[in-house]
């Protein structure tokens, strides 16, 4: 007789491919166990590991109040209820596709054109990435991806698809830009290992860097893809969060400006409303491909993750309101710029440097001066101190596959201004104390600081500071970013 348990489940179900046993999610658990609240729990952990955009939700809320007909449930809109509730065509509501195409154009300042017929729905960008992987690659094939990158790509792109992600190393001395040399090296390394590279996956604007890709680098990638006849998947989920110059350049513009640069069949864009509009709960993922066969295949696969027609209807109406979206994008950018400036200035005040960024909902900051050891372990130790003692859930660079220890991603758009000030105060206090301790230690015993082989004084310290790798109970209580 069989024994109840894991033996009768698949490897996919019982393995770690979901990626939730990593430090990225560990910090969330710490937050879940002790969440900050200005009144009820002022000493709780502040969530800075969640790239949500909460800055403009009330503008949308306002719009919904003034536009009851956009909902199929209000008396103004209920006449549409039956048709909408019954509609399950995976092409999606035509108005919805048109509105999304228009919004994507607007987020790119009208510099790119999008054809509504190429808009394919998916279960969030999460679903979009997985679907694209299923369409473009077989199990065992690989995509190259510049580091550092969004940790959940390991799940989205690889878990159920069996596709691999191989890094293109980027370095701080280049401001983490992708260089031709590293790109070629990554490609060569894969070929030497007899791994078939099917494409490159980039995020532009970048998560976690918060930078937009310059035109030249983008053109280099596009040309490389064309030469090697591999795909280029561009996750442009943060395209509407570009709050400062330089201007965002979408891969769509590259193709438009110079169609001969690349076979369009190789270019695909992933998009979502989770960041630009701040509505991850609505599960609106989009695949936009210039390859007809991919559009067709992805559309069939979208049966596994269509957008609720109730939501399609609401958004078709909201995003179809031209004046509203113009104002929303402008105001969102203004608020992001303001928040970004306040946060980075606060960090600079205590000598913490951030990578110069112009987009995204986060900063990529260097805490190298605070590392006892300039190693991955040193980074993790520092991170645990920040989570457990400073009570800030920021995300360690190693969870983003960053090759240089000491970098951390801190999100700033998922909280109000007061909470951000509280976070900055805690950082200031921590840095001051760390500097004082460092100075004190230096005068006492030189060998104790910044030596690669230095060990904690007590063994217990090491145990306490090592991240617990446990089965997550609910790591994604808030989000998957």
């Amino acid at each position, binding site marked *: 007789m069989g024994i109840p348990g894991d033996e009768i489940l698949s490897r996919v*179900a019982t393995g770690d491919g979901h990626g939730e046993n990593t430090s990225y999610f560990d910090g969330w658990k710490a937050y879940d166990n002790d969440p900050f609240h200005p009144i009820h729990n002022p000493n709780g952990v502040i969530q800075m590991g969640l790239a949500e955009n909460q800055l403009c939700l009330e503008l949308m809320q306002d719009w919904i109040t003034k536009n009851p007909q956009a909902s199929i449930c209000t008396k103004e809109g209920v006449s549409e209820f039956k048709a909408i*509730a019954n509609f*399950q065509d995976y092409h999606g509501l035509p108005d919805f596709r048109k509105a999304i195409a228009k919004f994507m154009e607007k987020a790119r300042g009208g510099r790119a054109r999008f054809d509504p017929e190429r808009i394919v729905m998916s279960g969030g960008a999460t679903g979009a990435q997985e679907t694209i992987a299923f369409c473009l690659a077989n199990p065992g094939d690989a995509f190259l991806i510049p580091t550092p990158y969004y940790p959940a790509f390991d799940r989205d792109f690889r878990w159920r698809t069996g596709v691999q992600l191989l890094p293109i190393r980027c370095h701080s001395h280049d401001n983490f830009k992708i260089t031709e040399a590293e790109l070629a090296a990554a490609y060569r390394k894969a070929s030497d290992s007899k791994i078939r590279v099917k494409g490159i996956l980039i995020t532009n604007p970048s998560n976690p860097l918060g930078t937009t890709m310059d035109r030249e680098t983008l053109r280099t990638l596009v040309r490389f893809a064309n030469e090697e006849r591999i795909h280029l998947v561009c996750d442009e989920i943060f395209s509407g969060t570009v709050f400062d110059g330089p201007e965002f350049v979408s891969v769509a513009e590259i193709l438009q400006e110079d169609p001969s640069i690349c076979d369009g069949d190789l270019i695909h864009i992933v998009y979502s409303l989770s960041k630009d509009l701040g509505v991850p709960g609505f599960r609106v993922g989009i695949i936009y491909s210039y390859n007809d066969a991919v559009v067709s295949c992805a559309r069939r696969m979208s049966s596994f993750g269509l957008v609720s027609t*109730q939501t399609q209807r609401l958004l078709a109406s909201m995003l179809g309101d031209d004046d509203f979206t113009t104002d929303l994008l402008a105001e969102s950018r203004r608020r992001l710029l303001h928040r970004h400036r306040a946060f980075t200035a606060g960090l600079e005040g205590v000598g913490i440097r951030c990578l110069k960024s112009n987009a995204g909902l986060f900063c990529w900051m260097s805490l190298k001066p605070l590392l006892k050891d300039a190693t991955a372990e040193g980074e993790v130790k520092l991170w645990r101190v920040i989570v457990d003692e400073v009570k800030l859930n920021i995300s360690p660079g190693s969870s983003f596959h960053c090759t240089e220890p000491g970098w951390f991603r801190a999100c700033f758009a998922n909280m109000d201004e007061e909470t951000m000030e509280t976070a900055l105060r805690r950082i200031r206090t921590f840095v001051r104390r760390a500097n004082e301790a460092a100075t004190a230690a230096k005068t006492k015993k030189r060998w104790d600081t910044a030596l690669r082989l230095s060990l904690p004084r007590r063994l217990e310290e090491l145990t306490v500071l090592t991240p617990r790798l446990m089965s997550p109970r609910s790591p994604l209580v808030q989000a998957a970013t």
Partner: protein
Amino acid sequence: MPQQLLSRKAACNTHGQDSSYFLGWQEYEKNPYDPKTNPTGIIQMGLAENQLSFDLIESWLESHPDATGLRRDGVLVFRELGLFQDYHGLPEFKKALADFMGESRPNTVKFDPHKLVLTAGATSANETLIFCLAEPGEAFLLPTPYYPGFDRDLKWRTGAEIVPVRCSSSNGFRITKAALEKAHRRARKLHLRVKGVLMTNPSNPLGTTMTRVELDTLIDFVVAKDIHLISDEVYSGTNFDSPGFISVMEAIQGRKNVAHRVHLVYSLSKDLGLPGFRVGAIYSNNETVVAAATKMSSFGLVSSQTQYLLSALLSDKEFRRSYIVENRRRIKERHDLLVRGLERTGISCLNSNAGLFCWVDMRHLLKSNTFDGEMELWKTMVYQVGLNISPGSSCHCDEPGWFRVCFANMSAETLELAIQRLDDFVVSCHGHKVICNSGCRMQSCMPKWILTLPSSDRMLER
């Protein structure tokens, strides 16, 4: 463009949508019936939708402005909902859904919301379960005839295989131990490791609920083989007549070594008629399956806006109870209308007590007792009679001549018209050896190319 540029999954036909069936869909799309603007168009009877009870939901909405206006106690909850993407789902919604499921199964089973995983429709639920339970190349046994969409949902991206459990009209298409064993042997011969059985109860396309004997047979079988049992119960709320529906969760009560291997799939697309909202669920007593499926649901979560609306709707006990009763009454009425109408035309149906369709016996109308004959008859139905009904071969039925005919996705008038058209057709062909000649609706003969289309690999939507 060379096929190798894309994956094998993209280039293959396992999604099943290249089949000749789609001719019927396409023909319907080109020429859809409308009582005013296109009275001679094709009537869509290949779509198992429930359009009978929207007004019940609409009137609930009209009297509950808070839920509809995204308010809780007068306060707007848009912000909260917009941000809510926890794959555990909205607790109020899961509780309401669990209660609704319990009441649809005449309260014989109590569903625990913590064992529910929300997915983007039953389509996603079924695929997710297969990802959890089978490796690529492993197989599930499915009793025939079965919903053609399973070929896509269970096999396409998972790489799993389906081995049919052949059921026959000789015993009303009931599942027997012999048929299960035969299928299992066949899988072994094909070197396929069987990981489970997947059944649909109530059955699509048969419209019958499984008997206690069948359920016990299935449960005994999966225990003996140490495999899983997936019960797709999306039609559980459409059981309009006796015998009453018995859920697999009821059938396993009191049995040992079974709870961890039995999983249920549900959806609101049929019972509530809300396919657009993409609300599916997996229910399992196996914690590992629930945990894995929950993580996988990230690829297809239910919109928080929709969860919120439906949690309000389904939390209303009074609404739940009255909806279930009235919905069933209307389905029965419509079912009876079709069955009686077909009887008058000399066409019989499998005796059914659930579902949104009838499994119709048109064997006596076949020119030849073959699947080619079935295809020919089907094309006649689509092009001459103007009815898009679904051929049994697309449901992997072993015997030619059976068709699934839906009745709940149109008005009573349209259904009457469909019956009338069928009647006219049968009368006009009565006594003629060859169908599709003079006396039929269309003047021209069918073009040769229609008759030469491949007869394999048909599929259709529920």
